[in-house]
């Protein structure tokens, strides 16, 4: 009824290429961001921040990075966890060794370091693809956390190997409370998501998608596979690295470097499969869903009168995740993002069926 585009005409290329072409979408998105910046801080409790919202922001950024690589460029990676670790460890080292460095510079440099590492482990993608590449990225997943533990310099020879994030401070603004951390993370994620959205709509993104859909044909029409694949690895790893740095600085506070293990990699992979491969929105929906599900599983059965032990809940979680992955791949390979799109299309003609 209200979501209608009749009478709206695009009269310029600019209007045609806008991210949100329909004013209703623009209004909705503006309201959503207003909600995120003003509404959430007004109502959210500290528990909600630390248990759901802040990890959601960090992991959705990681999922976004993986989605660029896997969803847009078609290169499957099982090394996301390790690359997040690279981001976290390098950010910690930068902040620790150069204390006066602006935190934003720290994050950008950490992202660039991760991008370099990611490109290195992406080199095999020149010759191999598909699950061969997945095994190659497993090498990164097992090698890098070992390196973090064994190379004492990385953790400043701390005997327990724990790295603790320093106080966050941005241009004199001391970021202390969960709310401030949330706003800080939100701003970074929003900026990077906007950049990603524009990146995948422009030349590099189109090259990645061409490589994904058929690499040989893409090569024939003049796309250099090496440039396209390695740039996907670099950009993806940059995002994952920043996500890792955020994960440590904003969410965890302190961690052992080998916490960035293969489970984290699978978790992010599940996020993009459920959220939607090849969709920016999907990365966020998937991350939200994957984080909410365990909370749902621990909270809801007791309300209904079933008492599950924690072990059982974690096993159930595995089962539900596994079943959902298969379900989504069969029924809706484009994930929650596609469902959202279908809903919008239905809404467009509602209440008339034509």
């Amino acid at each position: 009824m209200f979501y209608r585009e009749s009478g709206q005409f695009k009269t310029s290329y600019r209007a045609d290429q806008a991210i949100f072409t329909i004013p209703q979408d623009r209004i909705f998105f503006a309201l959503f961001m207003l909600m995120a910046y003003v509404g959430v801080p007004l109502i959210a409790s500290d528990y909600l921040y630390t248990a759901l919202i802040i990890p959601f922001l960090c992991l959705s950024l990681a999922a976004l990075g993986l989605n660029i690589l896997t969803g847009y460029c078609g290169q499957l990676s099982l090394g996301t966890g390790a690359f997040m670790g690279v981001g976290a460890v390098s950010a910690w080292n930068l902040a620790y060794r150069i204390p006066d460095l602006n935190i934003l510079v720290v994050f950008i440099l950490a992202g660039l370091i991760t991008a370099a590492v990611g490109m290195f482990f992406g080199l095999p993608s020149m010759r191999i693809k598909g699950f061969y590449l997945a095994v190659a990225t497993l090498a990164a997943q097992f090698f890098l956390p070992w390196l973090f533990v064994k190379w004492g310099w990385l953790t400043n020879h701390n005997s327990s190997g724990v790295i603790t994030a320093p106080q966050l401070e941005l241009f004199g603004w001391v970021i202390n409370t969960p709310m401030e951390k949330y706003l800080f993370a939100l701003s970074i994620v929003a900026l990077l998501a906007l950049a990603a959205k524009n990146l995948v709509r422009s030349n590099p993104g189109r090259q990645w998608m061409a490589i994904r859909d058929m690499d040989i044909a893409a090569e024939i029409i003049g796309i250099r596979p090496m440039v396209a694949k390695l740039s996907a690895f670099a950009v993806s790893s940059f995002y994952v690295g920043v996500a890792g740095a955020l994960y440590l600085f904003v969410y965890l506070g302190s961690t052992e470097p080998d916490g960035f293990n293969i489970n984290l990699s699978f978790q992010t992979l599940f996020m993009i499969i459920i959220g939607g491969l090849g969709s920016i929105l999907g990365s966020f929906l998937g991350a939200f869903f994957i984080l909410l599900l365990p909370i749902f599983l621990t909270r809801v059965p007791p309300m209904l009168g079933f008492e599950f032990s924690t072990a059982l809940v974690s096993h159930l979680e595995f089962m539900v995740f596994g079943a959902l992955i298969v379900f989504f791949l069969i029924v809706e390979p484009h994930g929650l993002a596609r469902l959202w799109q279908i809903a919008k299309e239905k809404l467009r003609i509602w209440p008339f069926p034509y």
Partner: protein
Amino acid sequence: MMFFLEVLIGGLMAGVMYSLVALGFVLIFKASGVFNFAQGAMVLFAGLFFVGFMELGVPLLLSLLLTAAVMVLLAGVIERLVLRHLVNQEGIILFMATIGVSFFLDGFGQTIWGSNVRQLDVGIPTDPILLFDGDILIQSFDLYAALVAGVLLAILVVFQKTRIGRALRAVADDHQAAQSVGIPLNVIWVIVWSIAGLVALVAGVMWGSKLGVQPAIVSLALKALPVLILGGFTSVPGAIVGGLIIGAGEKLAEVYIGPLFGGGIENWFAYVLALGFLLIRPQGLFGERIIERV
């Protein structure tokens, strides 16, 4: 020198265990082109059911049969619920689907049987054997494992010559051509997954007797992936040879190179070895050459 031999033999024996898992991967990949990430979870699944039946007081042979029945049933269910709906999808989609299957089996097995480490004793002797006047020590268990792997390999090679085996290879060659000469695709897939399930059962019994049946088996079984890269995804002997190379390589590396880096390189050495190998020979030692057409 003797020490080197001992490490080498120990590594080769450990490699046999990886081969047992890798065999299941190869069988499914050959026959359906599906890269079955769930093989490791199937090993745990089979092991859990087997040890579960044993603990309920079911005799050894009967529980072996019961678990085999469970694995065949599982193959049917996977075909019916997952594979049938994903025919003609890209390999990568099928691969991700098997990751889902892997998680489901992992959780399902543990929901039923719990996640404690369970000791499994099927009567395989575990006393050490000394060779060369006691200079070299090998576990007799490892010898039995090698024996089992050898028998399994022989059965599989013979099986390839049978009528069903030939049908499997026909399906692997060309789905459509096989179907047009009257080979039922769905039945073949159930058979393949059943065989992979039975191989997983053998692997589960061997791994279970060595380490106890525990969830860590799933991540250990991931080591079968570099084995496959080395041996080639489509070669049954390749799985064995790859396993031996990876097993021996990582043990030798741990003993001789490991101390330079502070040890613990066993966890990733196999993967990095496979990574290096991929750059030189992507199809593996015995695999068919990868030919791409537009």
